[in-house]
């Protein structure tokens, strides 16, 4: 059970196919699988559908895969930081399926948990509900949303042991666990790989069963909006 690979491109070897559905972790530029995205760019794989809360920025994260036109369709909740994305979308070169953020997270988690559909109040009475099944429970109306079953998941964690058990750090956890769960195969990039037994089994955020291949950084970990307060105002 060898899960540790030498590089992002090695870790993706044999997993890529044009037209595939990829689920990606991360929120904004926080906790994104930046090395695996670079390797996807290098691979030339195309016509991708990518389920990811955001689409990166023009020169970092999924923005790079948009720049090379390798993405056919995005499933996202917010894409406001990406000018090239907007250009492709408004010109019709790129499909975009907006999902409310919680619906997107739950759709990934559901796919990973073998749940093909679930009911939610989110989006009832809005454009999101159009064409979706409506059903009442206890006098309230809900819509059905479907689980996402991805061909491949790409995620970023903080630490892994060599059996694929993962821990995340602070808000960089975000979409990474649900994205990992919904993929047939999941590749994780981490900042450090430690020997099995190094992580307390009670503290593992994502068990290794969800993680098939692992690579180690280094990561740029770019900050999107650096906001600070002054020492003197404290």
């Amino acid at each position, binding site marked *: 059970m060898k899960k540790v690979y030498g590089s992002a491109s090695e870790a993706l070897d044999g997993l890529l196919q044009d037209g595939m559905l990829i689920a990606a972790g991360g929120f904004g530029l*926080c906790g994104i699988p930046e090395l695996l995205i670079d390797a996807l760019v290098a691979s030339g794989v195309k016509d991708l559908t990518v389920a990811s809360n955001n689409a990166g920025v023009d020169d970092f994260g999924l923005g790079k895969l948009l720049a090379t036109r390798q993405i056919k369709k995005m499933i996202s909740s917010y894409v406001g930081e990406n000018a090239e994305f907007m250009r492709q979308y408004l010109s019709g070169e790129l499909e975009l399926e907006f999902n409310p953020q919680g*619906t*997107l997270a739950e759709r990934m*988690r559901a796919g990973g948990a073998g749940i093909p559909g679930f009911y939610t*109040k989110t989006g009832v009475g809005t454009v999101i509900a159009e064409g979706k099944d409506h059903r009442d429970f206890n006098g309230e109306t809900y819509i059905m949303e479907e689980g996402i079953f991805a061909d491949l998941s790409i995620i970023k964690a903080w630490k892994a042991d060599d059996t694929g058990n993962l821990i995340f750090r602070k*808000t960089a*956890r975000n979409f990474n666990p649900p994205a990992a769960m919904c993929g047939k195969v999941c590749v994780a990039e981490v900042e450090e790989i430690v020997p099995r037994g190094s992580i307390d089994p009670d503290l593992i955020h994502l068990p290794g069963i969800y993680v098939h291949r692992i690579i180690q950084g280094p990561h740029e970990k770019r900050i999107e*909006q650096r906001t*600070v307060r*002054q020492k003197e105002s404290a």
Partner: protein
Amino acid sequence: MPSSIKGWDRNQMAARAAQELEDGMYVNLGIGIPTLVANYVGDKDITLQSENGMLGMGPFPFEGEEDADLINAGKQTITELNRTSYFDSATSFGMIRGGKIAAAILGAMEVSERGDLANWMIPGKLVKGMGGAMDLVAGVGRVIVVMDHTNKHGESKVLRDCTLPLTGKGVVDRIITNLGVLDVTVNGLSLVECADGVTRQDIIGATEALIV
């Protein structure tokens, strides 16, 4: 309507919104004026949720202490507190959808007299996405909108019907504007409070929706 009526400024609106919060509440604050509400909670024990996966959001970090792994839902660098917990996005929106967040204080483009809310897109303009707004308004215990009563053209943002695509239908409980406080009731909009120097008549005059 007389454009001379000013009522509350941004900070006074935030201070008024802070009165909505009670000790022990878990709260989600939207961007803009809602963010300012945190400055006015006083010694009430309020825990702020950031929907990207955190309860117990702290202030911006000191210069040099920013952490790329610690941001809020507006993607700004922030800090943690001694009550903080982190979790994934599915869990985060589970607690939102499941009604565990007592209140969300959000900005709005338009609110209708039946509590419809529009705050995520303007057709024909750039569409950025709803982010977590639709989940929040559908799930949290109480939705409080804080916004200017009128737009920059002086037109009412409190309407009989929203003209923009909805974020949620019948989701708003209370509207706090520069002119006062309105509740969405089964009978329609009910005036709860006028801002300093503002009369009931001023608010009726500035409001397209019916006030009952």
